[in-house]
């Protein structure tokens, strides 16, 4: 019964999360803390914070944390399945419909307009992340270096992730951090 509740609750969170990120916090707060009492607000913030700095989608990471707390490893898996389920259904339906209309000129014009908007949305996302991610000169150099090399050389992003994690540790040990 607990597992079914977990699935339904996180499916709700999945449906109500528009765009992810911080938009998800009030919805989690209502469903998980207030209604179900599965975690306290503080625990939720902890999960969210760790979910942000571990690999993967933050919503999924947070769901796994809470699911595990409520019902062990199966709980973690079921909560994750719940949070991704609405996405899978909704996107599959939309993708199926759109692929039939993709050749219509009006649809192509609409998407050409939308792509312009996507540029602006990504730009805004980068600016927002920049504030938290680039506090000093060393991180400024890292960010610019990754940006330039990634755009021109197009290697697998894995290369940068591994290199930057190592650089972070090295720079901290060298005492460059915060200068």
């Amino acid at each position, binding site marked *: 019964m607990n597992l079914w509740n977990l699935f339904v609750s996180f499916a709700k969170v*999945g449906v*109500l*999360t528009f*765009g*992810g990120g911080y938009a998800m916090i009030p919805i989690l707060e209502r469903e998980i803390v207030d209604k179900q009492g599965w975690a306290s607000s503080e625990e939720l913030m902890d999960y969210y914070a760790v979910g942000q*700095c*571990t*690999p*993967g*989608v*933050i919503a*999924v*990471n947070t769901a*796994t944390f809470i699911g595990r707390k409520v019902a062990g490893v199966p709980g973690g898996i079921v909560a*994750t399945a719940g949070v*991704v389920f*609405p*996405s899978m259904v*909704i*996107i*599959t339906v*939309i993708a199926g419909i*759109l692929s039939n209309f993709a050749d219509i000129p*009006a649809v192509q*014009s*609409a998407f050409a*307009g*939308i*792509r*312009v*908007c*996507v*540029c*602006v*949305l*990504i*730009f*805004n*996302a*980068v600016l927002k*992340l*920049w504030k938290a*991610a*680039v506090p000093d000169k060393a991180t400024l150099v*890292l*960010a610019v270096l*990754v*940006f330039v090399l*990634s755009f021109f050389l197009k290697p*697998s*992003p894995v290369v*940068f992730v591994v290199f*930057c*994690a*190592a650089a*972070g*540790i090295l*720079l*901290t040990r060298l005492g460059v*951090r915060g200068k």
Partner: protein
Amino acid sequence: MMLLLRLFWEFFKTGLFAVGGGMATLPFLYNISDSTGWFTHAQLADMIAVSESTPGPIGVNMATYVGFTTAGIPGAVVATVGLVTPSVIIILLIARVLASFRQNKYVDAAFYGLRPCSVGLIAAAGLLVVKIALFDFDLFHQTGRLLDVFNVKALVLAAVLLILTRGVKQLKKLHPVVFIAASAIIGILFSF
């Protein structure tokens, strides 16, 4: 079958190395596009728009969409499962040692380096969208006229959107779907 396995593997890698949420999967998706040819950069830009305007975490929406485009409904399921598998494993492991993980100085130092990395990667992926949305290099290659590089209508729309989303206080908090819908309508009206 091979296609589904490859799809799982590509998204498993994405889930394992994309740090910093949904948008962080973007550079990986461009890399998948370049190395497999399953979908084009233009298709990817459209998928971003749809993923931002529909319910659900962006990263999951993107995976489902790419998976569906590549291999139908089985592809959608396999790509999404691939994306979340590393997360689930890592979180289940960390959950036992949550307090010490958060305070570990090596973890903290690694993320000091990973955050700017994420920003740089997302910015580079964003520039790829800019290249196809605001400029027209194909037309320039055909005509050789330098002015043809610029997609003027698109640049004007981008400038307006930028001012609206950054400069106007009341609009800043609006959901992206509002701007996406408005851009679609403008795209149709002015035949972009």
